[in-house]
């Protein structure tokens, strides 16, 4: 046997182990990647399974009934659904113009040296854990609303003929409006960072042409930048909406946990996530099943909202570590 054939044989052996290891490695990686799919699918299926008694037992009545009565063991989800929708809507109504202003300031108005530190400051709002928003909301912001904002709204907007009912009520501080404002502060960094990112993708030539024709900064922002980035901006708003719908800790403390349905935004309410957080550990049997069913509803709704958001944002350049 010659020397050359020996080395060839040993090489072939190594090739074979290399190929086997490569295949193993590839399968291990693919398995881990598929775990991401499994997590989402599992979250949907497990909450569907956990809430099956209520979801399949009561069907539509579970969604439309406003009666949530653990004593009589009857559960209707309308009050928490209403609270989730109203607080998220308030949050969006407040956060979208604020975020647009911030993005406009950081891309067109602020001097260059100011942009990075202020941008970091706004992003810090997203790094604060939601439990701290909740504590601050309950101990600081609720008394502030009760002392200053609620009486003012009741005396001014509350007197108006049509929208007056929205702003009438005792100055509790707690309630749908307070929760909506806290949520707005929480989602501003997400919406504004998407807006800021897409505003920077607008070709400079386009903006300069508008400026050369004599446009003001506002006209460039409103007539050039916004139409150019419309799709991604809507995506960013949906991303914020998805966050607001699912947020738990910040709203649980400031909503007041009341199942009554009222037209006034100054009155306490409840939301899907705060009902689950407040009651889950004391619940048993059908009550627990109803809460898990609420979780299923929340998951499906946020999944759809986030799906729309990501679909609209898919053209965006991805940046590291950002939500």
């Amino acid at each position, binding site marked *: 046997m010659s020397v050359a054939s020996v080395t060839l044989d040993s090489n072939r052996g190594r090739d074979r182990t*290399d*190929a086997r290891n490569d295949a*193993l*490695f*590839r399968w291990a*990686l*693919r398995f*881990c*990647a*598929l*775990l*991401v799919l499994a*997590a*989402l699918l*599992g*979250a949907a299926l*497990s*909450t569907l399974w*956990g809430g099956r008694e209520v979801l399949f037992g009561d069907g539509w009545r579970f969604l439309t009934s406003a009666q949530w009565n653990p004593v009589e063991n009857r559960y209707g989800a309308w009050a928490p659904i209403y609270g989730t929708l109203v607080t998220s809507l308030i949050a969006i109504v407040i956060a979208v*113009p604020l*975020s647009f*202003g*911030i993005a406009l300031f950081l891309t067109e108005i602020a001097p260059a040296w100011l942009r990075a530190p202020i941008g970091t*400051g*706004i992003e*810090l*709002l997203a*790094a*604060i*854990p*939601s*439990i*701290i*928003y*909740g504590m*601050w909301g*309950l*101990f600081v912001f609720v008394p502030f609303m009760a002392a200053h904002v609620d009486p003012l709204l009741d005396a001014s907007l509350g007197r108006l003929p049509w929208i007056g009912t929205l702003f009438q009520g005792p100055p509790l501080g707690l309630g749908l409006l307070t929760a909506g404002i806290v949520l707005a*502060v929480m989602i*501003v960094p997400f919406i504004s960072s998407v807006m800021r990112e897409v505003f920077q993708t607008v070709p400079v030539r386009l903006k300069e042409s508008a400026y050369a024709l004599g446009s*003001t*900064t*506002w006209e460039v922002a409103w007539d050039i930048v916004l139409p150019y980035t419309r799709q991604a901006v809507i995506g960013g708003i949906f*991303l914020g909406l998805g*966050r607001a719908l699912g*947020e*738990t*800790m910040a709203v649980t403390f400031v909503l007041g946990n009341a199942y009554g349905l009222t037209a006034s935004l100054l009155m306490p309410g409840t939301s899907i*996530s705060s009902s*689950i957080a407040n009651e889950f550990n004391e619940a048993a049997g059908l009550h627990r099943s109803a809460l898990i069913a609420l*979780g299923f509803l929340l*998951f499906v709704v*946020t999944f759809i909202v*986030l799906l729309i958001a*990501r679909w609209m944002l*898919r053209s965006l350049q991805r*940046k*590291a*570590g950002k*939500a």
Partner: protein
Amino acid sequence: MSTRIHRRRHAKNIAAQVLASAATLLALAFLVWILWETISRGLQAIGISLFTKITAYADQGGLANAIVGSAIIDAMAIALSAPIGVMAGAYLAEYARSTRLGATIRFLNDILLSAPSIVLGLFVYVIVVLPMTAATNGTTTFSALAGSIALALIGLPVIVRTTDEMLQLVPSTLREAALSLGIPQWKLTVQVLMRAAGSGILTGVLLALARLSGETAPLLFTAFGNNYMAFGPLEKMASLPAAIYQYTNDPNPALHAIAWAGALLIALFVLALSLLARTVFARGKTSHD
């Protein structure tokens, strides 16, 4: 005529700029307000007993068991999510960069990133806590392990996404050079690419830790809480966020003070991690240029 139009446009422009600046100031004011209240109220209750006494003493106690519990649960969570996340990210970057499966996983990973954390808590309750209760006839119900699995699900998408992006940034010449030397692909990925993207991947892990260490909702029905010191992964375990939640819901103002101190600890930890992640990332960037 033309001057009137000009003046109106000018006024509108000024108003818009003022409003935009005011919006930025308002957001920053909220940031300062929240941080200020957390720091000033938290500092008042920080003392030696916060770190030495457990929550069983209530308003005479501290948060020692919650701090230890958070450390254990967070460490287990990151130990679970980091390897899985890095491997999943490597799959996306190295094997599925432009396949349909890769695009789908990336898309769904982004959704998992913003999924409501309380639902992930319910998910782990149904798949871990309930089966474990049934298997042990109720001797083990809520557990630190279940809590860390729930938190791992929060951190996982952050790590997957950063790893994927950082590996994609590694120049393909490095891959070609290594492959032309006959290195098998697994060795190339582990020993060349992950080393080149190391600081970026570490940034992702740190950001994931920052994110999951502040989460409360998923812990409530998984790790539950415990007024005494616990070390076993199958025991109910206290954690800082859950203890803060419990104390905030209590009418006793002395407990609120302890809760603020706990909130300050979490805030400092999260901010320090975010800063560390930034410096690691910045240093990694310069060394490769």
